[in-house]
């Protein structure tokens, strides 16, 4: 993992901690927002609002519906594409 990826992941972990109260050490790229981190649809909205504020990237509903894990969100933020 490059330093850039690690920064994005770290920032995302902090946001998840903030909106869902899950400590960073319990979050991995494989963590599913809903199944593993216990987030509901409104918490996921809050997550992407904070992402917008911190990264300046506006993620539309149709996109974030397809980003189901932390790793997928990191990949989208870094490359602007929804991972397969």
């Amino acid at each position: 993992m490059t330093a850039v990826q690690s920064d994005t992941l770290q920032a995302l972990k902090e946001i998840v901690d903030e909106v869902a109260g899950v400590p960073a050490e319990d979050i991995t790229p494989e963590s599913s927002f809903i199944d593993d981190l216990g987030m509901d649809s409104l918490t996921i909205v809050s997550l992407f609002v904070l992402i917008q504020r911190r990264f300046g990237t506006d993620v539309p509903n149709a996109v974030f519906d397809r980003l189901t894990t932390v790793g997928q969100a990191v990949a989208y933020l870094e490359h602007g594409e929804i991972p397969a």
Partner: protein
Amino acid sequence: MNTPLTEHGPAFRGALTGLLGLGTYLPSRRITNEMICERIDTSDEWIRSRSGIRFRYWAEPTETVEFMAATAAERALEHAGIAASEVGCVIVSTVSHLHQFPSLAAGVAHRIGAAAPGAFDISAGCAGFSYGLSLASDMVAAGSARYVLVIAVERLSELLDHEDSGTAFLFGDGAGAAVVGPCDQPGVGPVVWGSDGSHKETIRQSHSWAELRDATAPDWPVITMDGREVFRWAAYQLGPIAAQALEKAGVTVRDLDSFVPHQANMRIIDELVKELGIPDHVAVARSVEIHGNTSAVSIPLAMQELLASGRARPGGLALLLSFGTGLVWGGQVVRLPPAPAGPPVPAATAPAHPTKENRS
């Protein structure tokens, strides 16, 4: 009438008008989450985690919009010590008065014994109290009326799809009123309001009354809402609107005594408190828990609740912030009215018989 607020008084910019009295009406039928769950496949726990709502009140057939609005108005007049005959204009905000005309305001004005004041309804959904208050304050400041009654009333239970798990639990009925009149110190800050019709489908009546005429008439229209989209809109937009309302009034969050956002959903309120950095000393209205989302009624209900509990101080500065169907939004800083006699209390019973006057 208002308690002077010397430590913040000079900084607060607003019209020389104020909220002189408050009155509310909560209908008699208390609806618990368990009762809602008889019709939708969910639980009390889910409703509470999703919205913060524990119960709401729904009107009986005789608790019509006119009856509830007039009762709240009479209570506000009594609280302000103003006679109905002194009211120069009656503004009613509602989306659940099921007559296209005449206005509900004209009927309410007559019912409370006002002396032929100006009277009209406004349609600004959940932002209706902020909109109406702004109109009232401007009228008083301009000398168009000495006292204006601003009334919000909803019977949203009538427009609910009781099987829609996104909305069935959310809304409650009731009425709230305020008397606005002249003051010797600023009491109503400039409104920050707006609309974005590109979101007009986000919260709406499912279909037009006109469609009920057709041979294959659809069902009774209901509230349709994309809750997640509303939440998203609120999360992005409300913070800057609140900041603008504070700035226009010349104050900061530190100058506030209380924060009274529209009681739409506890999750939105929590987000706002965080985003705006509302300090601990500021009382935050959270009466959505016990009233549900009562649309434009929520702000007067919440103000009364906060003042009656002693957490908000009469004469203190409150930031009001609301948004709703349109989408529209409105917010302003106000000086809180005198303490009410008590919190909003649900009616022990509904009126016994529907009369011609209280048919909605």
